[in-house]
């Protein structure tokens, strides 16, 4: 359309007065629409980040109390106790502990005494026994033992029990609160850092439950996952990127890998259950099966990441190597792969962090068993961090709510650490071409 033609068409149209009120209000509307869109975007971001903030702060709020544990520090004179030194494990530790506790608040009636003993963890005898077995010299005189308070009294000590609520609606009686205050007055109740959370394995009692089993189970699973998926992933990526001919088969492999990366994780759990447990007869709940399933899951992502980082190495490097007489393998393994390695490592660590947080496939292969000792290897039954969180979240005891949040904070801590290492590697070693 030529200029004259268009001006001919405009003949009947009156000239627009851009300064008229009509046009001014139209402009205003248009700018307002623009600002509205911008505001919507900002609201969306604030919504998402606000949710994140609420998520983290609610976890910190409920979880921080689990990082301390109320304990009673009690001195026991074992030299006067009647203990057969040749059979330490079979001595009457229960009587010893009860005697020592009785000495703190003497003169209670039998039924009052029962209420009094409820305040301490029911496994106090085993704690004392294990401490003595580990160090028999404690038998020779007075020594102090640390006995955790039972969960309701731990919460009382942390101020989570409202003393004004009617007695029938609390788990602690007025009388027990009185005894508790007496013990506090004597100065034997303290609230140190809860190392048991990291060094104890799982337990039915919140005051004794810890993450040691879950952490080592996760460690073994991730080790298996890394040992399998890292070499296999890199090898597959190198083949597809550098060697594979372009044909139907490699196209199929490529579509396959992209699709596998988006298959729901629970399906990998079904695969592990049917193949590794059902057909190969591998042990249930074992980190080796967990690691295998996780490695199948991380493999596609790892292949994709490795291919991208191989692609980013300029082809001049390859050509220079080939030019001075290197074979294709030498060019790749001596030059291209080392240059791509920082990016590959970053991707591998991030995929491992993903695998660490994954729980659905582990549930299906039974890594949610109740196991009270940390595993010593990849063939022993164990839990993993996320499945432990899932189990604790299902536990009815009040004390497990705080423990679950604390366990989540520990898991998030590991994830932050791993991602931090990945970011550090990227910034320190990555080359920009």
């Amino acid at each position, binding site marked *: 359309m030529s200029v004259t033609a268009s001006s001919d068409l405009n003949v009947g149209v009156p000239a627009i007065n851009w300064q008229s009120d009509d046009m001014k209000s139209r402009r205003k509307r248009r700018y307002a629409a623009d600002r509205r869109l911008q505001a919507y975007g900002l609201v969306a971001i604030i919504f998402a980040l606000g949710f994140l903030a609420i998520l983290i702060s609610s976890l910190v709020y409920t979880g921080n109390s689990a990082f301390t544990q109320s304990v009673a520090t009690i001195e026991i004179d074992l030299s006067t106790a009647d203990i057969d030194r040749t059979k330490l494990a079979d001595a009457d530790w229960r009587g010893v502990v009860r005697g020592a506790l009785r000495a703190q608040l003497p003169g209670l009636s039998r039924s009052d005494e029962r209420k009094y003993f409820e305040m301490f963890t029911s496994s106090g005898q085993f704690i004392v026994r294990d401490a003595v077995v580990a160090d028999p010299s404690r038998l020779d005189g007075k020594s102090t033992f640390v006995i955790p308070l039972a969960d309701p009294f731990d919460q009382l000590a942390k101020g989570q029990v409202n003393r004004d609520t009617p007695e029938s609606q609390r788990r602690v009686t007025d009388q027990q609160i009185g005894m508790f205050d007496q013990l506090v007055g004597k100065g034997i109740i303290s609230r140190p850092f809860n190392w048991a959370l990291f060094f104890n394995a799982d337990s039915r009692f919140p005051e004794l439950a810890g993450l040691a089993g879950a952490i080592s189970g996760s460690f073994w699973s991730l080790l298996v996952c890394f040992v399998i998926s890292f070499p296999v992933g890199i090898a597959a990526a190198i083949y597809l990127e550098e060697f594979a001919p372009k044909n139907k088969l490699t196209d199929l492999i490529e579509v396959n890998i992209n699709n*596998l990366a*988006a298959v729901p994780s629970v399906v990998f759990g079904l695969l592990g259950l049917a193949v590794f447990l059902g057909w190969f007869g591998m042990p249930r709940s074992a980190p080796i099966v967990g690691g295998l399933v996780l490695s199948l899951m991380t493999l596609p992502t790892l292949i994709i990441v490795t291919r991208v980082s191989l692609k980013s190495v300029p082809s001049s490097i390859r050509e220079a190597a080939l030019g001075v007489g290197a074979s294709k393998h030498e060019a790749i393994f001596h030059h291209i792969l080392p240059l791509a390695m920082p990016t590959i490592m970053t991707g591998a660590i991030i995929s491992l962090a993903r695998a660490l947080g994954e729980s659905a496939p582990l549930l299906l292969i039974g890594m949610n068993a109740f196991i009270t000792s940390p595993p010593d290897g990849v063939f022993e039954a164990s839990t993993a961090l996320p499945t432990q969180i899932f189990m604790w979240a299902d536990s009815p005891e009040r004390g497990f709510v705080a423990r679950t949040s604390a366990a989540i904070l520990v898991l*998030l801590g590991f994830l932050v650490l791993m991602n931090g290492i990945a970011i550090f590697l990227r910034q320190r070693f990555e080359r920009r071409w």
Partner: protein
Amino acid sequence: MSGYLIAFLALAALSMAYLGNSRAKATHNGAAGKIHSRPIYHGLNVAIWTAVPAFVLLLVWLVFQSSIVNHLVLSGIPGSENLDASASSILMSEVRQVASGNLFKEPSPEVKAAADHFKSLQGIAAYLMAAAVAVAAAIGAFFGLKVIGSRYRARHSVELSVTLFMMFSSLLAILITLGIVFSLVFEAFHFFTKVPFTEFLFGLRWEPQIAMRADQVAGQGAFGVIPVLYGTFLISAIAMIVAVPTGILSAIFLTEYSHPRFRAVVKPLLEILAGVPTVVYGFFAVLTVAPAIRDLGIALGFEASPNSALAAGAVMGVMIIPFISSLSDDAFAAVPRAMREGSYALGATKGETIRKVLLPAALPGIVGGVLLALSRAVGETMIVVMAAGLIAKLTVNPLDAVTTVTVQIVTLLIGDAEFDNPKTLAAFALGLVLFIVTLILNLIALHTVRKYREKY
């Protein structure tokens, strides 16, 4: 045992590599003249010959050992020929329990004898395996060392081995898919021999627990998948209603309106939402969101279930926001500058450019991203396992509890898994449905995204 053998193989490979290396060096300096490959390649070649065949033998042995031992033990028990598969597997697990010393009651003499037989066979198998692996390693090392010479092309041999390993690794992706498909189809096929296929596909009731009773005839409408699928799509729809507008709007703000420095801070923060493990979201949904929604419902006069679809869906939606946001981000970035600038030149405001030019142009990419996100929502497990209900219900009320495919898979398989009752097998049938649904969504989405990328 196998752990020690692997350590032995690693050690043997290392020492053979050293031996091969030094022998190649000796040849190099000897009378025969220069050798073809550098000594290290000769060493590597010997190491590969030593360890790889022996390692493969070890793996194959481990795969077949238990079934062969089981077969031998079972054939030694009188009267076991007449047992069917599940009865003999129960018998076998009893034998294994007795053999490992877990006695709950005094075992019958046959079982005791079988347990002793089992133990002795296992011991023999372990020795045989160690011997076989050691012999394989020795033969490999012998031939590997024998071929070292000035004309031997060790580098080519090593490179061939590496290439074979790489080819196998990339074929593994296909093997994994085949493994998924076969295991799901195989177990689902067993399920469909007990429950009619049409009942499963068109049934309107999902009550898998009922079939556990011995007198219950499976397939009386208790395994209808429709309400479970419906619940999955209700929760996914809620998630998408939360995630799609939030994700796209935040992508618009971050790409078009925000200062680069704001973007550099906010984008990684948004990505954190995608990195938080799903079990954490599940716990948060149960602990905070569900009670909040319940209180809100009561305050407004609605009856809200404690595990409402809304709580699970909303939390899942937040999890997906960064996913949609970054995929839309890519889609916007792929729109050519010229289109944007043309729109500005005509006097359009930024908002008009975004709504009338950018969005339509980026739509295929965004749709692909949304489909990928939908597939993720359908397959998401932990949030719904913790926060959604267990009872399948056909309801449109988002405050009611519904169940999803993944919840049913996990609840059916948690605890003991015997592969012969319809309850366990139903989980595999559901898994097959889930796999097919997500596969279709993924393929469409990947196709759309790829095709769209080629366009510009």
